[in-house]
Every structure is written in structure tokens, then in C-alpha cells.
């Protein structure tokens, strides 16, 4: 049985193609990911001791049990979780914590979302508009405040987060943010599972529809359908499995979830920086890995403006140096720290709850040497990052098996 000093490994992992799946419902997508992960790990539902099930848009539904009812009802505990855009990472943390705590030696996590065709997310709670002004809620507002007192829309919030970084450190511009998007759209051309795989020129990106300056449409994450699932196994259990399973297993050297500590302004404009920096710091400590050791990073580019600040938050560059770091070419796939070689959320897509496991799949696939055309040669160590506004940040560090 596992113990608190137990190592954690990914035994099997799978993601569906991201994009439009009009003929598949939530359970179909989740089932495809879960069956794929179980098959990849060479195990079945009977081997699994716990399920962390992630979904955001239908969070009231018992998604984990709905999947069990299609794939195998074994009576094990299911934790249905929702944690904004960190939902997938949170589901994975549930499996990791259960294995780490010794409650089981094998756990399953999945995240699934049906989001194709969804419009602008968040913002626009118009319900308080009425025929006579009546104060409502914690601000005593007589009308909806979104759009009247700043913006609650995601593109607008993250635009300000990028602009704030520029104000603090300089070096940013509309063009710089657009170039980050150009990189990710270029990377996506090599990823057959991405929702969008079209290369886009800087001109095309900058002249596309403006959503919230400086984010144009291709600089925003793409709403789409998708699912991803992972089987987590304890180190001691892994030793009892086949050599082939051991060889393809990917070590979880760090698994961290943080929330935002109080700071001035954090309830005015979400502060996505400190909790990411805290998660990264804990992850580097837990794993003994340094940022310079990373062969690839999948970070939460929900908007081009967000990717920039996370170079800094994940300590991939010197504090304040994110613009210079990007301009050096470091984060392109042939650079020193390739970031979002999957195409990132801007082109691979962002089926919210799936994202925090799909990014693990991307890194694991490179560490296994199975990423085909987009393989980062010799990749041994990678980092994944997601952030959900509210806020929650998940960071995982993964390492190739020694064998």
C-alpha cells in the first residue's frame, strides 16, 4: 500500500481531439478519454480505487458516476470537482492526494467539457436591472456593474493583467502580445489534436476582430469540446507492473494547487501572478527541478496577454524580463524553453475542465518520445500550469522514467 512518502506516476493518459463534437455528449467524450487512459496504462476500472471527475459547465451533474454507469460501476469513491479553469488539475490533485495518502494505489482523473459555440464567458450578469432601482448584493448595486464599473469579461480581465505587467516593467505592446499568439498558432500546425491548426501571420492576428484591446480573436482561447484522462499510480504499485508499463510511466515530481493570498488590489483585478509564483516555487522545491532544467512548458495562455506574465510567474525568466525573454525566441519550439508546443489554449483550444489534464498529456507524450512531428528531442523534464479565476493555480512537474 502507498505511503505519504510515496512517489506518484502517470501510468496511462489520453486526450480526445479538441474541437467540435456535435455527435458526442459529455459522457461520450469523457468515456473516450477514460477508456484511452486505462488502455494506455494497461489497466481497467477494476484496478482503480478513486475517481476525480472534473467538469465546469455542468458542475451540478454527477459526471463521474455518469461515466461509471457507461464504463464500469465498481463502487469506488468519486469526487466531482469544479474549480474554474483549474478544474482538470484539481481532479488530478484528488487522485494524487488519495494515492499519496495511502487510501488507494491507483486513481483516475478526468476532465471533460462541451464548449463549442459558447460565446463570451463571464461578465454580463444583467439580472439586477429592474424598473425601480433597488440595491442588491455585496456592493448594494442598483444595476449590473459589469461594463459600468470596469469589465468582468475574461478577455478584458486578462488584457488588463498583461497591460499591468507592461506598466510595471515596460517592453510590452500590442505587437508583442500578437507575436506570442503567432508563435502558438505556428506551433499548432504540428498538433493533429488541436482544434485549430492554421498558421496565422502577425498581420492577420493584429487585424482580426478586436475583442478586448490588446487581445484580438486569435489571441483568445478557443471554446471547444474535449476531454482528457489520466491514471495515477503509486511508485510501489508501479514496481509490480510490467517492464513496458514501467518504461512508459511518467513521474509526477511535483503536484501543487494554490489559491491567491490576500494582497492590495487582488479583489479589484484578479492577481494571477502571486498564486502562480507560489505554486511554481513549491513545485520546484518539491521536485528539486530548476526552471533551467525544463525541456518544455505548457502554460495557461487563455489569452496572449496571460502567456507573457506567466513566463515571469513560472520563473522561466528574470523578474520583469518576460518581454525580453520572449523576444529572444526562447519560447518558440526551437528555443531554450519551448512553451505551448501543443499550440496552447489559443489554438489547441480550451475545453475548460479538460485543459488541466490535456496539458499533462502533452508533456507526458514528449517525455515518452511519442510526440511525432512536434517531438521536442530528448525531452526529460516538463512543467504544466493552469489557472482558474477565482482563483486557483495548478502546477505539475513531470519527469521521464529513468529506465
Amino acid at each position, binding site marked *: 500500500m502507498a505511503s505519504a512518502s510515496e512517489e506518484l506516476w502517470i501510468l496511462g493518459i489520453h486526450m480526445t481531439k479538441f474541437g467540435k463534437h456535435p455527435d458526442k455528449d459529455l459522457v461520450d467524450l469523457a468515456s473516450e478519454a477514460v477508456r484511452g487512459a486505462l488502455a494506455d496504462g494497461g489497466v481497467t476500472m477494476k484496478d482503480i480505487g478513486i475517481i476525480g471527475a472534473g467538469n465546469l459547465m455542468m458542475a451540478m451533474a454527477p459526471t463521474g458516476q455518469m461515466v461509471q454507469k457507461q464504463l464500469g460501476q465498481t463502487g469506488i469513491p468519486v469526487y466531482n470537482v469544479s474549480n474554474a479553469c483549474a478544474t482538470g488539475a484539481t481532479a488530478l490533485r484528488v487522485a494524487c492526494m488519495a494515492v499519496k495518502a495511502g487510501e488507494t494505489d491507483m486513481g483516475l482523473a478526468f476532465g471533460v467539457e462541451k464548449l463549442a459555440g459558447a460565446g*463570451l464567458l463571464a*461578465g*454580463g*450578469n*444583467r439580472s439586477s*436591472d*429592474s*424598473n*425601480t*432601482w433597488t*440595491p442588491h448584493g*455585496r*456592493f*448594494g*448595486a*442598483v*444595476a*449590473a*456593474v*459589469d*461594463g*459600468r*464599473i*470596469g*469589465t468582468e*469579461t475574461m*478577455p*478584458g480581465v486578462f*488584457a*488588463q*493583467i498583461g*497591460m*499591468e505587467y*507592461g*506598466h510595471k516593467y515596460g517592453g510590452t505592446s*500590442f505587437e508583442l502580445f500578437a507575436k506570442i499568439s503567432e508563435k502558438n498558432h505556428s506551433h499548432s500546425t504540428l498538433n493533429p489534436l488541436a482544434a485549430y491548426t492554421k498558421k496565422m501571420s502577425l498581420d492577420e492576428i493584429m487585424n482580426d*476582430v*478586436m*475583442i*478586448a*484591446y*490588446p*487581445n484580438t480573436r486569435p489571441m483568445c482561447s478557443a471554446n471547444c469540446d474535449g476531454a482528457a484522462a489520466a491514471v495515477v499510480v503509486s511508485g510501489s504499485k508501479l514496481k509490480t507492473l510490467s517492464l513496458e508499463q514501467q518504461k512508459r510511466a511518467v513521474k509526477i515530481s511535483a503536484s501543487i494547487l494554490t489559491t491567491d493570498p*490576500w494582497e*492590495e*488590489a487582488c*479583489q*479589484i*483585478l484578479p492577481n494571477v501572478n502571486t498564486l502562480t509564483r507560489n505554486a511554481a516555487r513549491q513545485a520546484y522545491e518539491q521536485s528539486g527541478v530548476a526552471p533551467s532544467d525544463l525541456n518544455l512548458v505548457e502554460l495557461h495562455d487563455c489569452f496572449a496577454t496571460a502567456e507573457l506574465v506567466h513566463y515571469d510567474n513560472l520563473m522561466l525568466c528574470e523578474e520583469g524580463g518576460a518581454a525580453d525573454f520572449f523576444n529572444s525566441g526562447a519560447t518558440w519550439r526551437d528555443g531554450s524553453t519551448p512553451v505551448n508546443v501543443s499550440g496552447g489554449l489559443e489554438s489547441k483550444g480550451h475545453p475548460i475542465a479538460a485543459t488541466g489534464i490535456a496539458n499533462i498529456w502533452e508533456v507526458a507524450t514528449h517525455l515518452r518520445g511519442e510526440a511525432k512531428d512536434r517531438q521536442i528531442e530528448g525531452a526529460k523534464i516538463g512543467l504544466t500550469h493552469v489557472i482558474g479565476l477565482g482563483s486557483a493555480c495548478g502546477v505539475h512537474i513531470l519527469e521521464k522514467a529513468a529506465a
Partner: protein
Amino acid sequence: MAEQIPLVDYLVLGDHPHLEANECTACGARFFDRRNACAACENPEFKKVDVATTGEVRAFTIVSFAAPGIPVPFVATVVDCDGTSVRANLINVAPDPEHVSLGMKVRLATEVIGTDDNGTEAVGFGFEPLGG
């Protein structure tokens, strides 16, 4: 003159419109919403304090897509009012990158956002360029 009501309860109308924060009596952290306790130090006691009516744009975006009924484009911003951050729109300025810049100096301004069936005006606030 029509009766007026502020858009939010932390906007104080009158001859000198200003924002009012809930300040933690123990650590000085400031909040604009109704509080249960201080998120910084857990103290449940607060006092009302006036927030500076001038400040500096710390971050902004120009929103082109918003909820139905919200005129676009508009400028959403975070203004640093002498150490207290405030979320607001920038008003009385052209909503384009040529007229809005990081670090620009602004001051609080109010505007009527609508009139209800009783003839009461709701008054909102924003920030406008200083000396503009």
C-alpha cells in the same frame, strides 16, 4: 432636481462625490464590498474611509465585445488612487489606444446611467483624464 441613488453603495454622492471603502481596523486593508471579516487578517471590524478622487491608470483594456445592453467600445481600467486600487471605466475620453495610456492621471467623475419608473436617477462613476 430628480432624486438620485448611487449605482453602488460605496459611491457617495453630494457636492463632493467620492468613493468610500471599508477599512480593516486592525491591518488597514481596504474593501468595497459588504464584509464578513478581513481577508488579510481575519478581523471582523471595519470603518468607512474616503478614497482619493484622483489617481493613475495602472491597467486598462478597451472592450469591444460585452454583455447585451453595454455600449461598446468602452475603456475598463484599474486606477491606483493613492494606494487604493479602484475598478472603473474611463469616461469622457475617446476609447482608443491613442487617447488612453498606462500611467495617465485621472480623476473621479459621475454620470447618470438611467432613470427608473419613479423618476429616480441612478448615478454611476468613472474616471476622466485630469486637465482634459
